[in-house]
């Protein structure tokens, strides 16, 4: 029997009856071998309630053939045995198995440590709470623990970081999250209004508003089975690249701030403002909220707006390139960033790292290239920016190169574009395909965002699952700071810049 149904990022929704329901042991044995090849990584793995108990869905991405392998299994609900853990073989499964254990009490045998993931409101074990999170401990007279958080001293989000240090050197870092849990996934089901759901998707992670709303509308459009104008895809691609430019510039500035380098900090702050103001001039919101809507848009580009965006992006590109060249020649900066916070390629593959952090460790994972959607692929052929040292400097260089690349793409997409005025306004009432699974994978500035939805027989969404790239990459940060000085933690943290609310949902 075929274990998977093969799909891709541009295909329409799949009927639930077409997804094979396989034996877990067979799937486990296949994944055991398959995942040793780094062309595969897990995009999503979740369980959902069905009449007879639980049905598990798994989505595996094949980077070489652009295929998405989907499978499912439904073990006996009353079995006490538990399932063999995939995390024990391939650590990239750890957040998914922990989540299912937390929500449904499923035991994964030989899992290293089934810790709670995000303290969901509907978790099974009410006794487990943030106050008794089982932090890892090491005994030793010369060791000391440093606890940072969960309340952040500045303005960013909450998360608890527990360091075990030998003097200034970090031996181990454990990151406990869940403080931002808002119940987004269940909120998405409470109201079937597409408009409300779009607004919710914009708030999954505030710094990725465009990426997450793009993932949502792509998913809905697949379920709606209504053709999308290529011009609309073009405008969405421009928006997502603008978001990438803005966030990468902001992080360049933040890295400079953390090493006390005032000059680059102020230069990048000014450029970032210019970028988000461009988005604001386009759609009225600096973070691109209200820009992405299903089946259409309220803010189609006009000739004047195209000229404005092209002018601004050209100027941002020129000025940022100057900053970039200076950064590459600043010895005090290089001495801080080079060989700091190393995540080797093999380690990045093991933990299933995605996005720009993975590309900085020479792992070629970029949805725009491997699983293109919308405007990417045919119209815009993307070649990912790669760096191979896996240190803070590599992550900074990936950001810097991607800003220039994205600026080129925006110019390319807008240079020969004359708006026809044919892009429709949003349609929130399209009937969705019944009893289907729909997924969308989008490369946000941080990395791969994957949304999955299941519909019931009246065409309502009955299950909505969200995955932010941070879910994979937080473990990368914990690995990066091992054996570094504790005072270098902030620059490592900034070099990843992961989302708390994207993880906690």
């Amino acid at each position, binding site marked *: 029997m075929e274990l998977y149904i093969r799909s891709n990022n541009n295909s329409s929704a799949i009927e639930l009856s077409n997804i094979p329901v396989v034996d877990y042991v067979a799937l486990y044995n296949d994944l055991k071998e398959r995942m040793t090849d780094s062309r595969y990584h897990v995009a999503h793995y979740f369980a959902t309630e069905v009449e007879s108990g639980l049905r598990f869905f798994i989505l595996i991405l094949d980077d070489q053939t652009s295929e998405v392998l989907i499978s499912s299994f439904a073990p006996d609900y009353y079995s006490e045995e538990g399932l063999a853990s995939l995390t024990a073989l391939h650590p990239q499964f750890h957040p998914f198995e922990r989540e299912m254990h937390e929500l449904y009490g499923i035991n994964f045998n030989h899992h290293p440590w089934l810790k709670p993931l995000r303290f969901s409101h509907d978790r099974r074990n009410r006794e487990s709470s943030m106050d008794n999170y089982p932090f890892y401990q090491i005994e030793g007279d010369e060791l000391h623990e440093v606890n940072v958080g969960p309340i952040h001293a500045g303005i960013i989000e909450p998360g608890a970081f527990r360091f075990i240090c030998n003097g200034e050197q970090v031996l181990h870092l454990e990151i406990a999250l869940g403080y931002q849990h808002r119940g987004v996934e269940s909120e998405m089901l409470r109201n079937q209004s597409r408009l409300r759901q779009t607004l919710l998707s914009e708030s999954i992670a505030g710094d990725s508003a465009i990426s997450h709303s793009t993932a949502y509308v792509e998913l809905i459009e697949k379920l709606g089975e209504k053709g999308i104008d290529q011009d609309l895809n073009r405008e969405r691609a421009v928006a997502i690249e603008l978001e990438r430019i803005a966030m990468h510039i902001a992080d360049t500035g933040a890295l400079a701030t953390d090493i006390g*380098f005032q000059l680059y900090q102020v230069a990048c702050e000014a450029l970032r403002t210019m970028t988000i103001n461009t988005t604001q001039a386009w759609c009225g919101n600096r973070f691109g909220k209200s820009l992405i809507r299903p089946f259409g848009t309220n803010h189609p580009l006009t000739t004047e707006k195209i000229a404005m965006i092209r002018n601004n992006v050209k100027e941002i590109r020129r000025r940022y390139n100057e900053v970039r060249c200076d950064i590459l020649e600043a010895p005090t900066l290089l001495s*801080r960033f080079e060989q700091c916070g190393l995540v080797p390629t093999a380690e990045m593959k093991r933990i299933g790292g995605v996005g720009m952090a993975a590309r900085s460790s020479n792992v070629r994972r970029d949805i725009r290239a491997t699983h293109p959607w919308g405007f990417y692929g045919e119209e815009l052929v993307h070649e990912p920016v790669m760096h191979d040292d896996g240190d803070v400097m590599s992550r900074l260089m990936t950001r810097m190169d991607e800003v220039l690349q994205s600026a080129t793409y925006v110019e390319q997409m807008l240079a020969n574009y004359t708006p026809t005025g044919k892009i429709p306004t949003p349609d929130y009432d399209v009937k969705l395909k019944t009893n289907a699974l729909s997924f969308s994978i989008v490369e946000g500035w941080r990395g791969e965002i994957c949304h999955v939805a299941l519909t019931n027989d009246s065409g309502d969404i009955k299950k909505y699952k969200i995955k932010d790239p941070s879910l994979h990459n937080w473990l990368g940060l914990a690995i990066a700071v091992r054996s570094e000085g504790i005072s270098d933690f902030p620059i490592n943290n900034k070099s990843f810049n992961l989302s708390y609310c994207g993880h906690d949902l």
Partner: protein
Amino acid sequence: MLVQLCNTLLMVVVALSITGVINRTRALLAGRKGIRFAQHIYNVRLLMRKGAVYSSTTSILFRIAPCIYLGATLMAFLFIPVADLWPLFSFHGDIVLVAYLLALSRMALILAALDTGSSFEGMGASREALYGALVEPALMMGLATLALFCGYSSFADIFADAQQLDMNLTVIMLLVAYVFVVILFIEAGRVPVDDPKTHLELTMIHEVMCLDYSGIDMAMIQIAGWLKNAIFAMIAANAIAVAFCFHWWFATPLAIIATGVAVGVVESLRARNKLSRNVTYILTIVALSALVLLIGFLLTQNIEI
């Protein structure tokens, strides 16, 4: 007596102005409008009007530490002459007293930081103790070089007599001034050793030790910081003034502008050191001051080569 009061007054002006010059220089180089010159003074005035909050885990040590910190620094401050003027206090051997008054103030703050029981403050205290111990030889050898040239061991005598110095020793004096400016960078917790503007507790040194202080205690710590700046800036300015124009009207603006601009420019144009490299940085200054002392000693022996 009038001269001594003038001297103290000028020192106060130096102490109040240096931070302002640093802030203005930073703003100018960043292309910002920046805060006004006297903003730091207004901030401290605001702190003085506020009540203090004490953690329930702290003891009396924590409460008296700011007084010791300010008191010891103020005492040292009153021994420093402005070029040809005479300081309020002076006696033979006061250079040693000044050095150890500064060490006493440092110890008070370290103990208070440990008293809070916070893991951040413990880390800050350990860093401060390490760097304090490393920079002390540089300070002592710098003072020894000054004493060597004049044969006196009080600041007032050294600089009163320095006017008759052989001008061939100008280079030595400039190097001594450089050593004291770098000691100021370290003692005041400025870039590249520490970053007073940072918001990251894990990377702080001086700031993290004051995290639990508020109100009047915080004000005392800040004022003591200004006084410390003035002490090192004035010694450096005196060393330069000896070589060129030894008058108070030359040394006072020199102390304010030279140190203020130096700190501001360095903070704008370079990154902080990696923490583990601070040790190397400080030892380099110790080595330089040892070299200056040795060469100074050889020169005073009038050895013909």
